[in-house]
């Protein structure tokens, strides 16, 4: 028996056709690399904005382990959600629904990387940062994915917290102690997440419905979703502009926050004013534009915080 024949039998007995055997890229895709970029960037900003300098190599390792922890929770999320991922258009191409990776492989990779990332972050920086990373993974996998995602229309609000923790972990890795500023950065992502995903849910129409995920659009209707987007955007404007007057803010951040929040509010107002007939007539143009703006919105706010922090040594950043 050739080893190809042997592997075919092995793979088929494991429930996977041999032509679908995973490549390295499939395992990497389990870690949700696109989400990881947001995690890396916000954790980096949290670290740079911290008042205590960190050794560049330790900083690099800390960001890497935070990203790895985020990736591990992504793999565990794909393991648990394989059934609904197979139904939704947006997630149908993920490695498990495609049949390239077995659910138990994703579970194994997720658990191993979770343990490794927490332990390494704790050893490289401090155990408070390690504990916060462990809590983030627990929150995303157990509280959000296993518990709330399929039971409450507020899933995205609470789940947003998991994605908002990285700047706090970055700050903790540098300082080893807690303060108010990283929690302001946490709130920026936390309040930003619901309108970002609800705009997506408005134009991805039947996806969440087909999967039976209780998105606000499904449980409370599309009108209620439009109102919610506007309310969260108003809250966002207050928070984002208020942050400008704290230790992590400054004139550059204030300018960015004022311009982007004005645009964001205008977009949310347009979404609120529209009904479904209008939205369908132009194929959700306003909702799609709002969604794209939301991506730039978060990136620009964190970039402005980073610029303020990087300019401080030259006496330029912050309020002096």
């Amino acid at each position, binding site marked *: 028996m050739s080893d190809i024949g042997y592997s075919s039998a092995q793979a088929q007995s494991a429930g996977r056709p041999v032509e679908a055997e995973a490549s390295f890229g499939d395992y990497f895709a389990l870690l949700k690399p696109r989400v990881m970029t947001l995690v890396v960037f916000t954790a980096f900003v949290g670290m740079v904005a911290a008042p205590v300098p960190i050794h560049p*190599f330790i900083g690099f390792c800390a960001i890497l382990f935070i990203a790895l922890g985020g990736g591990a929770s992504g793999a565990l999320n794909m393991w648990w959600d394989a059934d609904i991922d197979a139904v939704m258009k947006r997630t149908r191409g993920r490695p498990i629904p495609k049949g390239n990776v077995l659910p138990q492989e994703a579970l194994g990779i997720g658990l191993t990387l979770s343990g490794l990332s927490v332990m390494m972050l704790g050893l490289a920086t401090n155990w408070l940062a390690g504990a916060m990373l462990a809590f983030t993974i627990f929150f995303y996998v157990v509280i959000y994915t296993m518990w709330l995602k399929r039971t409450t229309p507020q899933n995205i609000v609470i789940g947003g917290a998991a994605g908002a923790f990285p700047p706090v972990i970055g700050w903790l890795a540098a300082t080893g102690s807690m303060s108010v500023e990283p929690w302001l950065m946490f709130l920026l992502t936390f309040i930003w997440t619901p309108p970002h995903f609800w705009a997506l849910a408005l134009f991805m129409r039947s996806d969440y419905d087909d999967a039976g995920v209780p998105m606000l659009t499904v449980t409370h209707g599309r009108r209620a979703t439009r109102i919610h987007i506007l309310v969260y955007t108003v809250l966002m404007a207050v928070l984002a502009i208020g942050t400008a007057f704290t230790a992590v803010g400054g004139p550059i951040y204030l300018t960015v926050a004022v311009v982007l929040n004005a645009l964001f509010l205008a977009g949310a107002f347009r979404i609120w004013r529209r009904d479904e007939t209008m939205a369908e007539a132009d194929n959700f143009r306003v909702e799609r534009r709002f969604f794209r703006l939301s991506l730039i919105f978060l990136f620009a706010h964190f970039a402005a915080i980073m610029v303020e922090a990087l300019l401080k040594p030259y006496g330029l950043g912050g309020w002096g």
Partner: protein
Amino acid sequence: MSFREPHELHRRRFGRNLGVGLVLGAFVALVFGLTVVKVTNTDFGMAPVQQEAK
């Protein structure tokens, strides 16, 4: 004599093994780097007992 063209499955496995090998190599380098930084960092000091013994 010429070698047979490797099966697609073998190529995929080679890619996977190479990927895992590189990741493990990078991890070893990372741990080594961390050790060097931690040991040479200024705030690193010997335990008082060790200092007395010296």
